[in-house]
């Protein structure tokens, strides 16, 4: 099977992966994955548990560096720059490629401090007044400002699950990232909180390149414009979301999205 049968040509990729292999010890979790992600579209990674979609997502900001047994081969670039190059500052990389996790994980600090922490360590605000602006702007973009503006100094952990997740998105936004990776951001949330996050993803589209891993195919269909289907560590098919969900080219994709996976 040739690459262009399963892959999507993207003119100006924000991030590109070429022939990426990931190993956990002896076990190969990702097999020769090549994919481009662009700025203007939300990209969804779907696939059954253990297919490698989260593992692959984590290679995009070197989260796998924290796993001792993990080894990444191949090339991954951000604006053409190799993110695994020895010259790459990983802390800087993770500011440029932010991440939102499955379970909301606000710091046990105030709402304000949750947002201010990143900009402070990255030196993005010179004064208290600057920081106030950054906090408000980030919370507005995260769709949380109106709900928390009168209690910025309450603990972030006191918020509801959906609010906590939007706080985490605000925290990622605060350091002015270029790419936001979301690893099943709604799996711990109820449908209303989920809808709010999905609406937020829609609003953030274009400002950041967004890649979302989701177990929920309907969610992939709702929020993304590009969908990549992973199975057994391979990228089976990558295409325009509406094509993937109405007329997938690969039998394996079809069986998975129609619930015939076996």
């Amino acid at each position, binding site marked *: 099977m040739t690459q262009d049968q399963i892959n999507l040509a993207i003119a100006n990729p924000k991030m590109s992966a070429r022939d990426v292999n990931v190993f956990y010890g002896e076990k190969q979790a990702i097999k020769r994955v090549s994919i481009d992600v662009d700025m203007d579209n939300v990209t969804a990674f779907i696939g059954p548990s253990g297919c490698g979609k989260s593992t692959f997502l984590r290679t995009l900001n070197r989260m796998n560096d924290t796993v001792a047994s993990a080894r990444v081969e191949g090339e991954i670039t951000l604006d053409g720059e190799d993110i695994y190059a020895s010259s790459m500052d990983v802390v800087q990389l993770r500011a440029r490629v932010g991440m939102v996790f499955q379970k909301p994980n606000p710091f046990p600090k105030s709402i304000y401090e949750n947002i201010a922490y990143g900009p402070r360590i990255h030196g993005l605000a010179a004064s208290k007044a600057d920081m106030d602006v950054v906090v408000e702007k980030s919370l507005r973009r995260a769709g949380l400002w109106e709900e928390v503006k009168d209690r910025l100094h309450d603990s972030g952990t006191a918020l509801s699950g959906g609010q906590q997740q939007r706080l985490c998105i605000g925290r990622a936004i605060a350091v002015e990232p270029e790419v936001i990776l979301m690893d099943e951001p709604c799996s711990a949330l109820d449908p209303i909180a989920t809808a709010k996050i999905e609406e937020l993803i829609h609003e953030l589209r274009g400002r950041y390149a967004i890649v979302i891993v989701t177990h929920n*195919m309907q969610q992939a269909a709702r929020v993304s414009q590009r969908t990549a289907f992973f199975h057994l560590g391979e990228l089976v098919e990558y295409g325009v979301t509406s094509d993937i*969900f*109405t*007329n*997938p080219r690969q039998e394996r*994709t079809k069986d998975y999205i*129609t*619930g015939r996976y*076996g």
Partner: protein
Amino acid sequence: MAEHTIKAFDDEIDRLRGLIAEMGGRAEAAIENAMLALQRQDLALAAEVVQGDKRIDAIEAEVEKLVIEVIALRAPMANDLRDVIAALKIVSVIERIGDYAKNIAKRVPLIATNRQLLEPMSLLPSMGQVAAEMVHDVLNAYAARDPDLAQAVVERDAVVDDFYNSVFRTLVTFMVENPKTISECAHLLFVAKHIERIGDHATNVAEMVYYAATGQTMPERERGGTDVQAEI
């Protein structure tokens, strides 16, 4: 095709397909019986066709309800989605085919036995047969998800169109020569037009079957005939 992990979904799809098969079979029989009633002046058979259309309409309503349920509860994707959308569209077309057959049957009592009329009527049974066969084959194509068979049905529509043009010309000539039969001939003209429309509808179903099976729209066919009457 592999089964769904959720078996009830397969049961619903099977039920949907079963209903469409029944509905199509009834529409096909309605065409044949309406034409038979016309040929034999069999008013009882004609009345039966009119009566039978109620069941066709009822199946349409049942399929619509089931499709809405499946979409709401199963969120079908890819070929499943194309299948249920096609089902929804196909039943509305078959319902129209049933209506045309009913309409032909309703004209039977208005076309009195008249030895004279045998001549212009001679082409109608064959024309009706081709249209009924198109309906029959397109249902087989649907059941087998067979795009080639669907395409073959589309190609046969030209035969029905040609028949229509012949019948049209024959009837017009006949009316000029036999002005007393104009009223009956006008009904026969409608009968021919209804059969011609049945052919068009079978073609539409074939296109939906093709799309559901392949995910592609059927390639545009060559329009060989230049006779404008078929287009009217």
